[in-house]
């Protein structure tokens, strides 16, 4: 009993230590793949990882907004990242997963799911080693990319979740007329 308690507090200390260390200069990222490319999102933004399930389509929205699903009582939109990034679209298989992400400020948190081919790993990234995303000119938009980092000689693109999940709002002015 006592031992258990002791080890528990040890664990806590270790967690705290790790947390402090994170505050210093490293962050953990969840990496996933889209085709041959590897992307990473801040792990603190990840709510859960689910397998793909059919969505209810929303009419008259961009194609990459696949639709909405019922996530334990709340309606959560699902975005296909391949289509968002204008990659070649792939069929949904048993391995296709939905990463449920959180975005927004403290006032309002939105939950959204992104469809990716598969999740790979949790990687620790030293903030100092993050490179700025190079400017590809107008051909390839890098607006969602926070930076690049090299993990095991593979390039991982770190995504800015807030920008990624910022959906273009309906054109209100058009609507009002």
């Amino acid at each position, binding site marked *: 009993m006592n031992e258990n308690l002791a080890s528990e507090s040890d664990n806590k200390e270790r967690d705290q230590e790790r947390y402090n260390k994170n505050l210093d200069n490293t962050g953990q990222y969840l990496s996933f793949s889209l085709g041959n490319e590897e992307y990473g999102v801040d792990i603190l933004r990840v709510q859960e990882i689910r397998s793909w399930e059919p969505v209810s389509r929303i*009419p*008259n929205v961009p194609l990459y907004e696949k639709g909405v699903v019922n996530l334990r009582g709340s*309606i959560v939109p699902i975005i296909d990242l391949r289509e968002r990034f204008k990659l070649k679209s792939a069929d949904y298989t048993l391995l296709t997963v939905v990463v449920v992400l959180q975005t927004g400020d403290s006032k309002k948190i939105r939950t*959204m799911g992104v469809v990716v081919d598969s999740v790979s790993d949790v990687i620790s990234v030293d903030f100092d080693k993050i490179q700025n995303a190079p400017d590809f000119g107008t051909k390839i938009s890098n607006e969602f990319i926070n930076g690049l980092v090299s993990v095991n000689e593979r390039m991982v693109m770190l995504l800015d979740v807030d920008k990624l999940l910022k959906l273009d709002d309906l054109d209100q002015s058009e609507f009002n007329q």
Partner: protein
Amino acid sequence: MSIDMSQFHQVFFEECFEGLEAMESGLLNLDMGDIDSEVINTIFRGAHSIKGGSGTFGFNMVADFTHVMETLLDEMRDGRRKVTQNAINVLLGSVDCLREMLTSIQNEQAVDEHAVALHKAALEQELNGGNSAVLIADIPTITETEAKPTIHNSDKPEDSPKEAEVGWKIAFCPYLDLLKTGNDPVRMFRELAELGELTALISIQDVPSIFELDPEECNLSWDIKVTGEIPESEIREIFNWVEGDCELDIQAIAQKPAKPVSVAPKASQPLPIEDTVEEFKEPDPAIPEPSSPVPDISILAAPLELPKAFDKPEEVPVSRTRDAIKLPNVESEIKNTVAASTSIRVDTAKIDALINMVGEVVITQSMLGLVGENFTMDKLDQLKKGLAQLERHTRDLQQSVMNVRMLPISFVFSRFPRLVHDISSKLGKKIELKLVGENTEIDKSVVELINDPLVHLIRNSLDHGIEMPANRLAAGKHETGIIELKAYHRGGHIVIEIIDDGNGMDKKKLIGKAVEKGLIDESAVLTDKQAFELIFLPGFSTAEKLTDISGRGVGMDVVRRNIEALGGNIEISSELGKGTTIAIHLPLTLAILDGQSVAVGDETYIVPLVSIIESINITEKMLNKVAGKGETFRLRNHYIPIIRMHKVFNVKPKNTSKTAEGVIVVVEGQGVLCGLFVDDLLGQQQVVIKSLEANYRRVEGVSGATILGDGSVALILDVPGLVRFSSR
């Protein structure tokens, strides 16, 4: 043992605000000619419970203040005082002031003592017949009628010994600006009167002629005698507040009472008594013949007589202080409601119903448990019966819970008579506000959010809609403009209409202004409706000049945004010279809906049952084409446009989309009939409305989403939006 009172504060404040609202509406309802004693009683009760409560909780400032109001009201109630417009205005001002005080206390901020003092002074002035000079005269009357003084009542000696001539002699000679600092001699005298028998003598020799009189200045001085065994500290305490604003001399009286005395001219050193007595006995010849006799002042040694004309100018500060404070109050009133409490007052009947329902559900559940324990097929009937019962009870329970959240819209409407009263008098317009359907119930969250937009719209109507009385007469209308605020249920929505019989909106002017501001193109041709919609554009205002009420061109766009955020919409219709009607459609509740599920291709949509008129199968023969494109069909002599859901929502149709193979659901959206062409009707069910916007965004033609029995998501159609959307 001490009890932590703070736990009751919230309830106290809520009760106070309720009381204030009752007082306010009572005051506004007081009809000058015919005073209804029940109305005064209501107002009085409001004041009385606030006084009592604040005393209990130790908010002495509030208790003090309310006490003065109560005294005034008490006299009105007993018919000893006539109800004048002025008195009502003062009381209304005090209600505002009280509300502010309470809000400050609630938010643990400092109370604006200056404003409080001003209002109190105004009240007291009113209390004393609008004439500060007869202040003292009234004191005995007041003390007699008081139920119990709120302050110092514990200090009050029981029956001051009258025969023993011990006490204090006070020469009180305030500086000119005593009143401006918010101090009020009457108040002090009243406190003195509570300590012992009070005799006061007034000196009016410094009162200037009527033309030079500044009503905000205190031109009087007093010589006061209080008899009774009173410690000096108590006397000092009363004068504590005015120490810097007067000449004060407090002396103990020996056995023999001094002759009645009057004190010297103000702003000079107090003179020896003998010198001034003589002067006082011969009133200044400049003062006109006295007219207002002083009522039963037995204790006043010298006759106190005052010029008649004195009455009038004394009313000035009353109205002036009120004016200065009025507008900010209206603003703060609105702010207060924004920070509305998160608690809710519920009729106990509703709670009882709820408990009843829960009981039923529990009984049904245990019955089902029994059936399920050793289930055999012969119990199937019982099981079905039980399930049916459960369904019914769940539905009832749901309804009861929803009922708890429903409030009559009068919670919002009740504030407007005051708003209209204040603003119309400020604008010099004559306006009558009619409230219709105040008991229409609406979800609490909607109630809280609808207030600001409504205030804005009503202000607009007051300012821009209703014309000045002269213009109205010239236009052949009645001098008094009418604003009607109407609420009713229609098709699962609550509709709030603001109808004024004012000038209406000038389409040409609107368009001209929009072109001038570069909001639309000069060549644009707009329908009436489109032209009226222009006012919702940011930065649009046709007001010739700005007023502090409206006209800055911010607002209508915000109003619209707020209402749309609630899932509602706003419509304007107007006729030049006749008036404007603004209709706001809001969802009744934000939670549950009776729906008809329909199939469109492989998808399922929910149509709110309330907007469905009927569903029919039609044949090709009934179809007509308009200009080769728009489809209509004939339904009992009406041509109704068809909206093909496949097209609108880009769904692959299941069938060949031949009209004969589908179903037309005839729906009504904002008074327009429309036929929705769908593949099939699936069934009716109650659905829980889930917000699409919480995680996603608004989608045109869709008002929300719900979760079906199989866990999948179905979209709920927004019929008016769909009609609008498809007509583009």
